[in-house]
């Protein structure tokens, strides 16, 4: 039997994307759990200081949304790795599709997850601020009250960071699918690098140096370009790697 209906790539991508929205809902469960955990961690504060004289004493506790953001970055990274696993990739075989449509749908889904993750991260940080605000017997100071523009930039930057992490996660996931030895090499390199940085204090390591490329960028426009280019490169390499995989590998 032959079918004459021509299905465009974009139609397939849209169908796959809609399917992924439903079937990957578990990711948002982990998002919630991690965000609540991050909020609880953040509530204990990030440090503090104090001092005084005979006539005067002060005590300051510090809070910030950094822990929540860091947790969400790890969530984005691991979520993207999970998307590349066999169980998730096999879902795509329920569609008349090719690898390109599958990748595009995955990128769309991870982009969508980054937006949801970014918005909830900002809202969770604001919830933390509200909780801190009502701490008894303490005066509240905000180190940088935000303007609407700064808030919009911050939200966009959070989403872009998460998207960058999904791209990296996707690449790492594909590398692991290509060769299982990366299951040992990647965590060893990543966590080893982080541990080294902690142990050697100020000694910089490669992972940290690469991170500085984004973290130290003060121009929002340049930051956006850097993130989008890096993400595009990571997704492109992932797609190239996946071409060398067997159909059901």
């Amino acid at each position, binding site marked *: 039997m032959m079918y004459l209906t021509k299905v465009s790539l974009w139609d397939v991508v849209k169908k796959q994307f809609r399917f992924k929205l439903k079937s990957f*809902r*578990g990711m*948002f*469960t*982990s*998002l*919630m*759990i*991690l965000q609540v*955990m991050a909020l609880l961690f953040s509530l204990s504060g990030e440090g503090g*200081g104090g*001092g005084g*004289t*005979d*006539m*005067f*004493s*002060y005590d*300051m506790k*510090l*809070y*910030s*949304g*950094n822990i929540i*953001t860091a947790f969400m970055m*790890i969530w984005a990274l*691991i979520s993207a790795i*999970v998307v590349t696993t066999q169980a998730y990739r096999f879902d795509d075989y329920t569609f008349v599709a090719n690898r390109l449509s599958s990748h595009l749908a995955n990128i769309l889904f991870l982009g969508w997850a980054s937006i949801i993750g970014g918005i*909830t*991260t900002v*809202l*969770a940080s604001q*919830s*933390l*601020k*509200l909780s801190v*605000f009502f*701490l008894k*017997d303490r*005066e*509240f*100071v*905000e*180190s*940088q*009250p*935000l303007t609407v523009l*700064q808030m919009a*930039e*911050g939200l966009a*930057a*959070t989403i872009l960071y998460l998207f960058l992490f999904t791209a990296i996660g996707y690449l790492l996931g594909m590398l692991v699918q290509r060769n299982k030895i990366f299951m040992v090499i990647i965590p060893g390199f990543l*966590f080893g690098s982080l*541990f080294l940085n*902690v142990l050697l204090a100020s000694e910089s390591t490669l992972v940290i140096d690469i991170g500085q490329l984004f*973290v130290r960028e*003060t*121009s*929002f426009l340049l*930051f956006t370009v850097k993130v989008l280019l890096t993400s595009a490169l990571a997704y492109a390499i992932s797609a190239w790697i996946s071409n060398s995989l067997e159909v059901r590998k």
Partner: protein
Amino acid sequence: MSIIFLLFMIILLMLSFGSFSNKFFAGRFMSGSGITKVFAGYFIILLVAGILSLMVSVEETFKGDYMTDKEIEQNDRLNSDIYATVESGKIDEAEGLTKKESWGFPLEGQMLDVTDMNQQSQIFIEKVNSLEEKVEVTHYTTYSYIDNMDITNRFASPDVQLTDSTLKIFPQDIVTIKLVKYTNAFPFTQFSEYGEQISNGYGMMQGMDFIYIMVPADTEVSGDGYVIN
């Protein structure tokens, strides 16, 4: 501390994404529309909290101004010269002094005994020709700050009383400040053109206190304090 935190974080992530989460959260309770409902509820809670946090007026919490780096540097420079200026009797020329409170007392006789119970302030006494049968006391202070938050106004002036010929300077109230500082996550501060409103690294600075007493020129002064002339 960082290593422990990192390890703890990794364990938590394993718990979230590993078999534990599959067993307990990926079952019927969290599947299908259940997740959507729970997530929608979570999102609404966050949204309400987020909106509330924007409605809270930050200005109503900490009472104080923020000093610029330049003001703090200037204050530090002035602090190093101010004692010598006051000691030489040129308090009117001293820069960086804040006049907090003044008192005037009628003085009977030509004797004044100054009793300092404060220990915090430095007392200077100037004999002036323009005063007759009167003592004028003024409390001056230099800036006090935590980081770059001006807390000069938190310090009240000491109570000053004149009984017979004894001028008593009572101890100042002890000031306790408890603060909680919230900093936005780094993606929000990364592109900041002007930097943070609160500068870190200045620590705490308690300003100097001066009690400046002016008495008639023919008054014999005894007790605490440094007589300028």
